[in-house]
């Protein structure tokens, strides 16, 4: 019996008595030492000192960074509270938590607790949780939070009912007693006072079942007992429709290194290896947790037993034809899988961080800032090589593919229904490459708020949109119309190089010298050619800025738009502003919100720049602050949980002419848009030639977007405005008609992009955001006739 699980090694730490400050400090030193020595997990027992094992594990999470924590709560606690505590610990520890349900005598109570815990973690279900059990009752609790990753649940116990429960519901089973020879010195003994049933909650955690048993007996009967226990688990698993390999098996062990061979786990390392090997290949255990209180035993086990045991197990498994593989996702998780995705073929490097609908983290990754989604699989590569593997896998799957950086995409859908999402949020580093030239390298998964905060200490900034929650990748491959655009141009105008993964999974660098045509295309149509894994930008010196918010009476809407447009075109480049009009309300003035950033910390300059803007309509309220640019961009991180699908139309316009202003006013008055937003552009963005990048709309002084309730109403109303526009900025437009692509990429720009698409993505792997059709050629009437 060998389930083929990879070997893992852990340490169970128990404080000595009395539990003074020194004892616990020593314990935590051992936890850190275990991490340094390469152990995979650390567990804590309260021991005879009755320390709280949950507190010990939570503290250890704060003092370690890699090792997993097999956290055990005090027994008999409230499972709904425990679910939140475990999710919280997993969030704080960045997904390093396993949860051990304390040894319990009543399998029924443990089974109900598991239902409560899993129900609380199912944050993607919007209905409250009800569990009406004999032992535990939950009556309409809000679900959540979900842990960072699906937290494996372990059951500890030898009672047949607990074994069956482990088979039915758990992710792991823990043998209840330490196998082996207790450490020699009385001070290190793992023997503890047996707590009477009435004394609960006394000792807690993994080590309440009494003394480590000396398994030195030669008859091997105890190995048979363990195999019998595994059989009970496996039978229950099969009955529940599970693969027994879903359930990890953990053996607690204790022993001592001695020159002479003694009983079980007493002797030199070779004796330990000989003793442990049958536990792996005959009794199905692949996780061993060593009960040890001294650094020397931990060191020797890590150095002299673990590597040799791995070798021995590998040899034995090869001889027996046992294939090594991590436990499959549980039947519960698999039951939520979607059709069309070969989940078992997900590359191993991506499987651990991938999220599928049954996983706890799904609630946090399914939807985006503005769009509800239910993808079948979210891949979260952490390196460019993993991005390559993700693309290579995704292109073999007959489902939609979406690419996500910060999840604010409007045109770039970045989620889907039943398809695959490649989420690059883990590629989020921000580093300075050269102080002299202000050259920085930024991962696509960073958010602009984080970029601004990282550059602030240098007195630098990179103009990059007007909302800090937006991710780098989606914006920096399209344009980037930000608060400093008139002074410093588009975000893409600061780009000096990219490294990206192409549709075939290969990695390339593109800049003015290497792959210059690709570099041209990435700046405005990047989403068509691959996934950028890092950007290099040359950023600007930016100090504090003036940040103003005005509330204006825009009842005379056309007049206001025309005046504001003229004021912006006349304004020096150090001011950039935007206006937002909401839906008109009967009997009330139409309110416009105007925001402006002045790239100056001089009060007189700020005021002189703002005065003409404030005079464009009757002023109702205003605030002006001098702030670091990073403060303007500051948005606390959070997860997205939108529902539905945004309906927008967008365009670029050179001027807010009287005709356009009047037409836009009619649109607003119609009530068909509830959020109408015009950003100023022009300035430095217009210094760049239209053919210098794939962003062609260089003549535009304004970018417009209207949010509506449905396509049927918004499209005709917006189409009526088309004669007034000069182009398209792709990132705000959700209309999928092919004319939009031609607006964004007119004439030669589109011809060049098609040639690039034919070269880099002829199979149209990337079609999430303004897809360019490689096959379609410009058809002139003459050519069609010929």
């Amino acid at each position, binding site marked *: 019996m060998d389930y083929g699980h990879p070997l893992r090694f852990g340490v169970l730490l128990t404080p000595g008595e009395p539990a003074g*400050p020194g004892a*616990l400090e020593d314990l935590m030193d051992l936890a850190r030492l275990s991490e340094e020595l390469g152990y995979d997990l650390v567990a804590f027992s309260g021991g005879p000192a009755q320390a709280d094992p949950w507190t010990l594990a939570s503290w250890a999470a*704060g003092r370690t960074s890699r090792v997993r924590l097999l956290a055990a709560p005090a027994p008999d606690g*409230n*499972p709904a509270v425990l679910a939140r505590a475990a999710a919280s610990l997993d*969030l*704080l520890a960045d997904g390093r938590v396993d949860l051990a349900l304390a040894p319990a005598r009543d399998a029924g109570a443990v089974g109900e607790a598991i239902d409560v815990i899993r129900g609380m973690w199912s944050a993607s279900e919007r209905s409250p949780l009800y569990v009406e059990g004999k032992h535990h009752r939950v009556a309409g609790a*809000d679900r959540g939070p979900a842990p960072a990753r699906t937290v494996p649940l372990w059951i500890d116990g030898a009672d047949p009912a607990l074994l069956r429960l482990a088979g039915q519901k758990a992710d792991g089973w823990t043998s209840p007693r330490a196998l082996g020879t207790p450490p020699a010195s009385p001070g290190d003994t793992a023997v503890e006072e047996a707590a009477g049933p009435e*004394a609960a909650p006394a000792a807690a955690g993994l080590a309440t079942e009494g003394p480590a048993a000396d398994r030195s007996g030669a008859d091997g009967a105890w190995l048979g007992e363990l195999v019998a226990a595994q059989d009970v688990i496996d039978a229950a698993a099969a009955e529940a429709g599970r693969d027994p390999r879903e359930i990890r098996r953990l053996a607690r062990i204790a022993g001592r290194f001695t020159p002479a061979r003694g009983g079980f786990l007493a002797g030199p390392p070779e004796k330990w290896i000989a003793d442990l090997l049958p536990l792996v290949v005959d009794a199905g255990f692949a996780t061993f947790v060593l009960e040890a209180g001294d650094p020397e035993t931990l060191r020797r086990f890590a150095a002299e037993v673990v590597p040799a045991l791995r070798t021995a197990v590998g040899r034995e498994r090869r001889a027996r034809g046992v294939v090594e593989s991590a436990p499959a996702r549980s039947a519960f998780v698999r039951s939520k899988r979607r059709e069309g995705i070969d989940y078992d073929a997900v590359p191993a490097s991506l499987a651990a961080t991938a999220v599928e609908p049954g996983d706890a983290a799904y609630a946090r990754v399914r939807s985006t800032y503005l769009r509800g989604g239910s993808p079948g699989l979210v891949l979260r590569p952490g390196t460019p090589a993993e991005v390559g593997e993700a693309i290579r896998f995704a292109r073999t799957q007959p489902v939609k593919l979406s690419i996500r950086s910060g999840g604010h995409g409007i045109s770039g859908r970045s989620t889907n229904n039943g398809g695959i999402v490649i989420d690059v949020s883990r590629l989020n580093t921000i580093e300075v490459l050269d102080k002299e030239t202000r050259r920085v390298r930024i991962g696509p998964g960073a958010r602009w708020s984080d970029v601004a905060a990282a550059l602030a200490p240098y007195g630098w900034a990179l103009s990059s949109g007007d909302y800090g929650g937006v991710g780098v990748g989606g914006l920096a491959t399209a344009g980037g119309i930000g608060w400093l655009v008139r002074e410093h141009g588009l975000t893409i105008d600061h780009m000096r190089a990219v490294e990206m993964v192409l549709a075939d999974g290969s990695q390339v660098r593109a800049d003015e010298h290497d792959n210059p045509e690709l570099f041209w295309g990435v700046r405005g149509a990047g989403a068509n050619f691959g996934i950028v894994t890092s950007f290099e930008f040359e950023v600007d010196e930016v100090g504090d800025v003036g940040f103003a918010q005005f509330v204006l009476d825009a009842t005379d809407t056309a007049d206001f738009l025309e005046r504001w447009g003229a004021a912006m075109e006349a304004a020096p480049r150090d001011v950039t502003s935007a206006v937002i009009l909401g839906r008109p309300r009967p009997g009330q003035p139409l309110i416009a919100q105007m925001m402006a950033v002045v790239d100056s910390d001089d009060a007189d300059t700020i005021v002189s720049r703002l005065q003409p803007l404030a005079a464009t309509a009757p002023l109702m309220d205003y605030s002006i602050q001098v702030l670091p640019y990073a403060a303007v961009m500051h948005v*606390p991180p959070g997860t997205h949980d939108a529902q539905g699908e945004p309906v927008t139309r967008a365009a670029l316009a050179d001027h807010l002419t009287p005709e356009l202003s009047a037409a836009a006013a009619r649109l607003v008055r119609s009530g068909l848009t509830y959020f109408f937003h015009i950003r100023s552009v022009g300035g430095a963005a217009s210094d760049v030639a239209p053919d210098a990048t794939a962003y062609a709309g260089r003549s535009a002084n304004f970018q417009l977007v209207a949010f509506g309730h449905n396509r049927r109403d918004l499209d005709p109303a917006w189409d009526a405005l088309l004669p007034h526009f000069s182009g398209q900025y792709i990132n705000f437009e959700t209309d999928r008609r092919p004319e939009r692509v031609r607006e964004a990429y007119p004439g030669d720009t589109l011809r060049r992009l098609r040639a690039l698409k034919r070269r880099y993505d002829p199979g149209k792997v990337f079609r999430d955001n303004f897809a360019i059709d490689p096959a379609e050629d410009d058809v002139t009437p003459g050519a069609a006739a010929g």
Partner: protein
Amino acid sequence: MPDYGHDLLFGSFITPANAAPQDVVALAQESEAAGLDLVTFQDHPYQAAFLDTWTLMSYVAARTERVRLSGNVVNLPLRPPAVLARAAASLDLLSGGRFELGLGAGGFWDAIEAMGGRRLTPGQAVDALSEAIDVIRGLWDTADTSRFRVDGTYYQVAGAKRGPAPAHDIGIWLGAYKPRMLRLVGSKADGWLPSLSYMESLDAITEANAIIDEAAAGAGREPAAVRRLLNVSGRFGAAGDRLLSGPPEQWAEQLAVLTLEYGFSAYIMMGDDPAAIRTFGGEVAPLVRELVAKERSARGSAR
């Protein structure tokens, strides 16, 4: 009275939001760096948007060096006292005596019941809290080597081994407003921890202090055995006519009055703005200490 003469403490009150856990930890570290004495977190285990306060405090304690930590206040109905006692002692030992136990009787009974907790009337909740204090102190008392038994109406402990003992005498601070709770503060607790926004008037503070003092005397305790702590909120900026709305100097004067005339000696500022935390720790706290020290020495020499 009042001015019970305690040294002054200043703290923060950070929302334990689970959307960005490391930001919460960073605010606690920011509080420590700003010179604050105390970091506190509210505890609403039925609130899905929050981190589990106990887990968070344990983690934050491991990520800080000097600052003290407390729940503000820990929800007793969903945290049974025997587990709480051992967890508190463990955290106090791990942190080198930096943990204090702000404790509340519970109030949102629908939510508590939805989580599987037991619904109590407000009066029962006060009695349960009183029993819980006995359970907690009894388990901490390792000087007594007998097995610990409590056969209360709400909590039972049938012959448990005592311990662990905390590293220092953990203060039990109660959130309290009504007379029964205030009397419990006076008779058993180490601190009174109300929120200024829940106090109807400054006179109500004086009345509450009197109830606590009387109950303390009834239990044979000095009024000074009960520290008075206050959760406050406000804003920094141009002088306003509301309490704690203005520049740091104005805050300091008002907090000095609350210390010298209303008996408070700890101020915990609610809010998650790192700039405000820096101002509170770096500017307000030293000013209040200076004002109070000056006045206390003047009063001392006048006596």
